[in-house]
């Protein structure tokens, strides 16, 4: 047994564990690592005190049939990056994100039931081209990135994927989306994928990610087993979470899914995989900020039912 204070389920119920209440599905999610884990990385020592995240929502993002409205989500992304970088125009905001000579890998997600919307992939590609990046220096993909010249030589990465529950890691969010940067992803599955934050310190990744987009247009908030998907367990949230810090986005993602579970279920199901990889990404790997108190959340658009 480890030394130090023992944290139990009851600490999470009381909200006294690690100051991370809310980083949990119900409560079974997070780790108390924040209080015990030593700050081991240089990044951690120099990490910013706060990080900014933009939540943008639009009631027109989805039509009545649940289809994505391309022009609307493109505008939402523009609005988000403007707010994120204090810019008065998308073009100026993208000047803070990319350089004309960048080689750009856009890491998306192809999971069949809830993939990265092509409309958003195209919006990012369009802005990158406008910024002056050559078309052959832009690649948008999920699988096979290690065999993709652009990703191997990338000077800039943009990370974009939908938010969902995940059988092995609790949530599939921005942190986990980089698992395709290793040849043997299953080696990162141990202990509820506790060390996914370490992916962000791999040489092929480290320091290259300019923007993270956690797509919360129709998040998946509940499921059991691998490859779970039930249309009853997604809802038309109509939002995007946009920031430079993948850990902060995922921390808010956990909070959002937890809130939705509490709203949907009279008594939220107690099972579920721990999402502790999110706080551990901060405390063990210095990949960002999971502490909700240190996340500056800027809200754009209608916030009825925003839950966070």
């Amino acid at each position, binding site marked *: 047994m480890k030394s130090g204070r023992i944290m139990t389920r009851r600490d999470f119920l009381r909200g006294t564990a690690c100051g991370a209440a809310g980083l949990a599905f119900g409560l079974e999610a997070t780790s108390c690592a924040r209080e015990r884990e030593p700050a081991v990385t240089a990044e951690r020592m120099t990490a910013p005190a706060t990080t900014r995240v933009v939540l943008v929502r639009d009631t027109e993002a989805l039509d009545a049939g649940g289809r994505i409205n391309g022009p609307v989500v493109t505008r939402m992304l523009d609005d988000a990056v403007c707010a994120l970088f204090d810019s008065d125009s998308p073009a100026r905001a993208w000047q803070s994100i990319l350089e004309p000579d960048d080689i750009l890998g856009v890491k998306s997600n192809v999971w*069949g039931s809830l993939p990265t919307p092509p409309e958003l992939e195209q919006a990012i590609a369009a802005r990158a081209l406008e910024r002056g990046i050559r078309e052959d220096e832009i690649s948008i993909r999920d699988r096979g990135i290690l065999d993709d010249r652009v990703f191997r030589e990338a000077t800039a990465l943009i990370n974009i994927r939908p938010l969902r529950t995940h059988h092995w890691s609790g949530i599939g969010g921005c942190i986990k989306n980089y698992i395709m940067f290793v040849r043997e992803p299953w080696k990162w599955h141990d202990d509820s994928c506790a060390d996914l934050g370490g992916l962000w310190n791999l040489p092929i990744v480290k320091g290259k990610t300019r923007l993270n987009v956690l797509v919360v247009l129709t998040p998946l908030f509940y499921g059991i087993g691998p490859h779970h998907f039930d249309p009853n367990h997604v809802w038309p949230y109509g939002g995007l979470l946009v920031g430079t810090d993948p850990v902060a986005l995922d921390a808010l993602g956990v909070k959002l899914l937890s809130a939705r579970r509490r709203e949907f279920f009279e008594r939220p199901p107690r099972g579920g995989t721990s999402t502790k990889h999110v706080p551990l990404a901060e405390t063990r790997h210095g990949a960002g900020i999971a502490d909700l108190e240190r996340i500056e959340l800027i809200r754009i658009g209608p916030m009825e039912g925003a839950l966070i």
Partner: protein
Amino acid sequence: MFWQDCYFATVFAAEESAESRRFMFELAREISGAIGREGNLPETVSLLPREDLVEISIRYFHRHTDLNQHYFISDDNILGLGPDTEAVIANYVREVKRSDEPGGKRSDEFVYLLIVRYPDDQAAAAAFATYVDAFMPEATETGIVELEDGYWSAASRAGSHIVAVYDAPAAERAREILAAALTRTEEAMK
């Protein structure tokens, strides 16, 4: 996924399609055929009371990280689980109510029952003391406590076994399941 003889097999595809689904089942049948023998369930599984048991919820494991995958108790190994212990956790559902509203709220009363078998009585006693001290220190005498979310948890030791109940909606329900499990465990130890 399936178990057979002393093997646990899980087959998954990174991308789900009709073709990958067909291939996964084909591969699983191949694996099953290669294993050949059927095998028996671990004895610990037979200690689970049958009434209200949700068969598909039964999980058999050894490590505390596996327990936390199914039901989070503590980051630390306060039950002293490991290669020398056998554990089983399962759900019990007495009543399921669903709102008539389409997509409406539902109320599934899932109670968790955990049974752990230790190498001997001494190991179980030591683990039980650690567990009670860490998880339910106010219930040293009673063995039952209402947790901060209003659900009840109860625990007891029977020889080389620890039996614990979680998420019971009422104290009576926690006691009922605990007593049923203790009865089966004590009978099995005779």
